[in-house]
């Protein structure tokens, strides 16, 4: 996938996800400019893994990411508030179970 180059000869923006260790998930690390996916991976390697932070990198064209609307916070994210039955708070701990 190759995003369209914006006007003004500016490289497109890519979002970078780095996995710090085997078994963990990729976490958003930041963004960068690059002319294409291959260079975006290399720039990400130079920018976000120079202190041994990662074992794997994903880069995604920023324009390919759909994000939630900040203005819709109320309808999107406030509904679960107060619904504590969705948390495991009503269970009683069985005897002898450790590490809960």
């Amino acid at each position, binding site marked *: 996938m190759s995003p369209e180059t914006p006007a003004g000869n500016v*490289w497109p923006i890519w979002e970078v996800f*780095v996995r*710090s*260790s*085997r*078994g*963990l998930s990729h*976490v958003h*690390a*930041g*963004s*960068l*400019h*690059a*002319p294409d996916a*291959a*260079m975006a991976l*290399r*720039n990400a*390697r*130079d*920018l*976000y893994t*120079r*202190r*041994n*932070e990662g074992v794997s990198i994903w880069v995604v064209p920023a324009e390919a990411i759909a994000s939630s609307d900040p203005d819709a916070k109320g309808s999107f994210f406030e509904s679960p508030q107060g619904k504590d039955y969705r948390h495991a708070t009503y269970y009683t701990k069985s005897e002898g179970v450790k590490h809960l």
Partner: protein
Amino acid sequence: MSTSPETTTETHDGGHGDISVGVATAGTSGDATASATRITPGNALRPEDIALAVSRGAAKPTEDAAELALRLGDDALILAQRLGHWISRAPELEEDIALGNIALDQLGHARSFLSYAGGLNGKSEDDLAYFRDEDEFRSIELFEQPNGDFAVTIARQFVVSYYQFELYRRLTESTDATLAGIAAKAVKEVDYHRDHSTQWVLRLALGTDESRAKMIHGFNVIWPYVDELFRDDELTARLAAAGAAVEPSSLRADFDRLTGEVLAEALLDIPQVPAALGGGRQGRHSEHLGFMVAEMQVLARQFPGASW
């Protein structure tokens, strides 16, 4: 660009806090202290390890090995100084950092080689880097060539990284354990430098008419200095006989083949230009080195022992 998640870095006593990791054991230290939740510097042979091994007498170069280390250390040091000039001047911030990373890799190799070379007569890496004059440097002329435009720098990087990769790859089998250790660390880094320059050669050569013209110009400027990389002399003959290094001329076939593949993909011809005279290994340099060395050394010479 936003901040990376490296703020969670912790001081890690078990890994690199321990400076006693010596040349002899560094190869086996591996990733045993790696953690899923902590960012650690990792374990690799560092210049400090070599300086320590040298100062304790655990590693001492022969006269020939020290001269080779001086040559390779000077190559890397001069290139690092050149590349450092790109910081804040590259076409994009991301490329600033890419070239800066490569410069720091080269500086690391220089520090290791010079620390080892200094072991012959009790000199430190700083003594060698800051308190020698121009004609005492043993670097090949290619490394001191001016940055030019971005394409010239990429052409220089392309030649250097393919040369260094072939050199270090063979040096990992050196009978000199310290040289082999330095090369084993360096070869992985130089492998990435090859990739970086190759990516740019392809993009510039196959990009616009202007970028292609600049890439062709870059190779025409740099190519006269290729020959000097592969010249044998009495030192390299003695080192080769001792199994401590290979003759530079023996790297040429692989260099030609691998660079040729990239140049063919980039639809570029190998420049037909006469070779420069080149006398860097004997301390005869082009007119560029003196100015560069003066700038590199001025602080250390004006304020000896300065630290910050």
